[in-house]
């Protein structure tokens, strides 16, 4: 019974984190801030995933979502590492850490 409550509680917490992170993703232009937001959304999704596997307190937590979440955490780290390197390189080359918002189709005009 308490197991069920705990799981649902953390699943809703995860849903809230997805909303908060999404806002950070939409509202910020700084790439590092977007990366923080990406990681917040990611862990929110993991919480939803993991909590859904912990609904049955009598059986203990489901190991399959746990394994998948560990895989997901590593993939998220890998993505963050590549993005951090891209942002740093871009800042070295262009002097900023935001994407210009103009239409990319305008590039390459003679």
């Amino acid at each position, binding site marked *: 019974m308490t197991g069920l409550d705990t799981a649902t509680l953390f699943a809703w917490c995860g849903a809230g984190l997805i909303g908060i992170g999404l806002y950070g993703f939409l509202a910020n232009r700084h790439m590092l801030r977007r990366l923080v937001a990406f990681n917040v959304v990611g862990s929110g999704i993991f919480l*939803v995933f993991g909590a859904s596997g912990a609904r049955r307190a009598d059986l203990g937590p489901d190991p399959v979502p746990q394994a998948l979440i560990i895989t997901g955490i590593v993939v998220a780290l890998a*993505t963050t590492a590549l993005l951090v390197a891209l942002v740093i390189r871009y800042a070295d080359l262009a002097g900023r850490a935001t994407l210009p918002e103009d239409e990319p189709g305008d590039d390459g005009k003679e």
Partner: protein
Amino acid sequence: MTGAIFDIVLCLLILAVALAAILGRDLFGSVVFFIVYGLLVALAWTRLGAVDVALAEAAIGAGLTGVLLVGAVARLRRGGVVEPTPPRPLARGAQMGICVLAAGLVGAAIAGLDPDAAGLTATVAQNLEASGVGNPVTAVLLNFRGYDTLLETVVLLVVLIGVWSLAEDRYWGGRPGLRQHAKPGGVLATYGRFLPPLGLLAGVYVVWAGTDQPGGAFQGGTILAAVWLLVAMAGLVDAPPVTARRLRLTIVAGPALFLAVAVAGIFMGGFLHLPPEHAKQLIQTIEAGLALSIAATLALLVAGPPQRGAR
């Protein structure tokens, strides 16, 4: 009862710290809040009984991701990169609406779930014996769904190649990252000597224990990477040049070993088949190889592309 109150407080704290990380006016502060957030989420995982995930979240999600972001903030600050202006209030309102809607949809989906669904807990338990290990999470990661893990280790390799290829052409052949200095006898240098034996012990233990208890190659590899990074930060060791043969062997050794076991399985019953009588030894061998490569790869990811000339 106390448990329920604790969980509610923890959830509210997690949400508040996440908000602080997203909305914080100062970027560095945001990153620090993100690290705190990761540790709180790790605590949530222990509350859900998922100790393996808690270890991974603390070490990788909060720790290494945090180090990467702190390093990036420092680099941008040194480069004099200014922060952009925030969006207009009208846009903010619309964005907030979208986010509330998204969270609401997910919440509705959760509310509609069958509260008694058991997932695969029982199936995993039935087959645990044949998997060769006692920790069900490790059994899923390295046996039942070992193919996911094989691809995942290669994902780390792809990213390392991607990070290296962001180097300037003239620095190719140089050592990754910047040269680190520390005052001899200072805090960093002292701990740089004091921590490695303890850290190595902890890292190897977490890898070794992973077969039957929480832990494993990813969590242990992260600890080993952290130890190396600390020693490097203290200026006591330096990464070999990116062109060094032994460095490249180290980063592909784990995935290559895993792939070799997977292909050898074809002749023992199928791709990635681990015969139950040898499964434990095979998994331990794979984990040892992976831990080495993961540790090296993670440490090199934090160090970044070569930024010094070849000498």
